């Protein structure tokens, strides 16, 4: 394959990674932004989403599309409820102390991981995509009669991958609308800006925290459900995803949704392209270097505000 079509193929892979990463990192960033909690267990919520997708799809055992749609609805709900319960039973008792919540979420990480290992096992299991047509993509070349379109062999995308990109975009747009256009968003932002004053003006801050923690986890779970037809569900899949999410959130600026999306596109695309042309290891090395540069030259991240 020529360089051009090859690059397009890599970019599509990168866009899928970026879409899933943006969803997951948005959840991490939301939780940190509102609650000042660094949620180390966030990757496990992603893993739980993927594993539950398999559980739901294989229990229903019906048409793959039906199982998948059911998983898309059920898995984020269950994971969100688990996270909200963890917030009310553990994080609340720690008064959301920044250091102690890190330790607590590390504990949560191992509990979720080991419970999954015990219940689901060490295998990687696939979920059938609801639809998976192959669409051949055209490329342009200079021929005898000027510009011509042709269909290079192997240059194609599946409808499912396009769906993942579109679904992530739609959910992120919905999240943005929720934060900026609704009453729930106003309450969450007020809590983020000054929790004590939020209480003094009748906002039930504890309930807001439980809701935000649940919503953040549900976003990770949704990312997990979307990826499992491409990547398979495995009990250790949360680790890499967590690392990449942290990279995205640090580069984008903690608490900034726009920054998170931009950084996810940057990291996802470069990961896809570098992995295809060079090696996945080099992609991780470059992403980590990027974090180091951001921390040195722009510690608040691309879109974050400097501390007051």
């Amino acid at each position, binding site marked *: 394959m020529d360089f051009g079509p090859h690059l397009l193929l890599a970019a599509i892979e990168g866009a899928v990674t970026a879409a899933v990463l943006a969803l997951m990192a948005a959840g991490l960033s939301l939780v940190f932004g509102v609650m000042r909690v660094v949620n180390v267990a966030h990757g496990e919520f992603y893993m739980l989403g993927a594993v539950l997708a398999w559980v739901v799809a294989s229990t229903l055992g019906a048409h793959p599309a039906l199982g998948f749609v059911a998983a898309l609805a059920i898995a984020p709900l269950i994971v969100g409820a688990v996270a909200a319960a963890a917030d009310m039973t553990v994080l609340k008792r720690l008064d959301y102390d920044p250091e102690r919540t890190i330790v607590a979420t590390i504990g949560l990480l191992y509990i979720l991981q080991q419970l999954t290992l015990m219940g689901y096992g060490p295998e990687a299991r696939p979920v059938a995509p609801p639809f998976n047509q192959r669409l051949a993509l055209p490329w342009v070349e200079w021929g005898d009669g000027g510009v011509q379109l042709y269909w290079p062999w192997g240059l194609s995308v599946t409808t499912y991958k396009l769906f993942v990109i579109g679904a992530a975009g739609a959910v992120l747009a919905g999240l943005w609308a929720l934060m900026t256009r609704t009453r729930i968003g106003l309450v969450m*932002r*007020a809590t983020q800006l000054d929790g*004590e*004053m939020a*209480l*003094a*003006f*009748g*906002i039930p801050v504890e309930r807001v925290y439980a809701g935000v923690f649940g919503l953040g986890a549900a976003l990770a779970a949704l990312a997990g459900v979307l990826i499992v037809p491409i990547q398979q569900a495995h009990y250790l899949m949360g680790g890499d995803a967590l690392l990449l999410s942290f990279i995205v959130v640090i580069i984008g600026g903690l608490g900034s949704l726009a920054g998170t999306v931009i950084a996810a596109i940057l990291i996802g695309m470069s990961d896809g392209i570098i992995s295809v042309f060079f090696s996945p290891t080099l992609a991780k090395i470059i992403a980590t270097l990027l974090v180091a540069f951001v921390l040195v030259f722009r510690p608040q991240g691309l879109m974050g505000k400097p501390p007051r």
Partner: protein
Amino acid sequence: MLELDGIDAGYGPVQVLRGLSLTARPGEITCLLGRNGAGKTTTMKAIMGLLPLTAGRITLEGEDISRLPAHEVPKRGIGYIPQGRRLFSELTVAQNLEIGMRVRPSPPQVLTRVLELFPRLADRMGQRAETLSGGEQQMLATARALCLEPRVLLLDEPTEGLQPSMIEAIRQVVVRMKSEGVAILLVEQRLDAVMSSADRVVFIENGQVRDNADAADLRARPEMLKRYLGV
């Protein structure tokens, strides 16, 4: 009537208030006086339920509000104008007021009335609170508390850092609330302002009430001020 009855409160292991009792009556301005660090702000936070009480109780019209979860306290009609304004800085003027309106919630005409009191805010509804001038920020903090149609209004140093005309504007609003029968608890460092508008004065020292006086008596016996405030 708001009554604090022998309350102990503090921050974690640090006890600040020690058996503090005071009363704020409807249609009266009760002024808290005391040196820096005496516990005036702490008293207001304790009323709002933001600090746990280790002893005593706080009642509003006979209802014990010190056992309520903190977010229920303002719903009983207590408006808080905190020291340093504490606006929701990145939200607009309109959104800050909306949060005040949603507390009970209040009928829409309340907002119209509040904006009549502070016409300068009406022109700046879309502006972010952090970009307002200091005086405008104080107006917004006051307006936010008035949006919940308070029965009790807590004002913690509302004139800090304001020019005389702004102080006068705030004073007029406070006097107007008083005439509408609101119970007002005011922390104020500027004695001339206290002397001209307060009905009762409570002296606080080391988290305890040292003395109570009618403002009229105080005007006759200024040596009390010297004893508790050193002025």
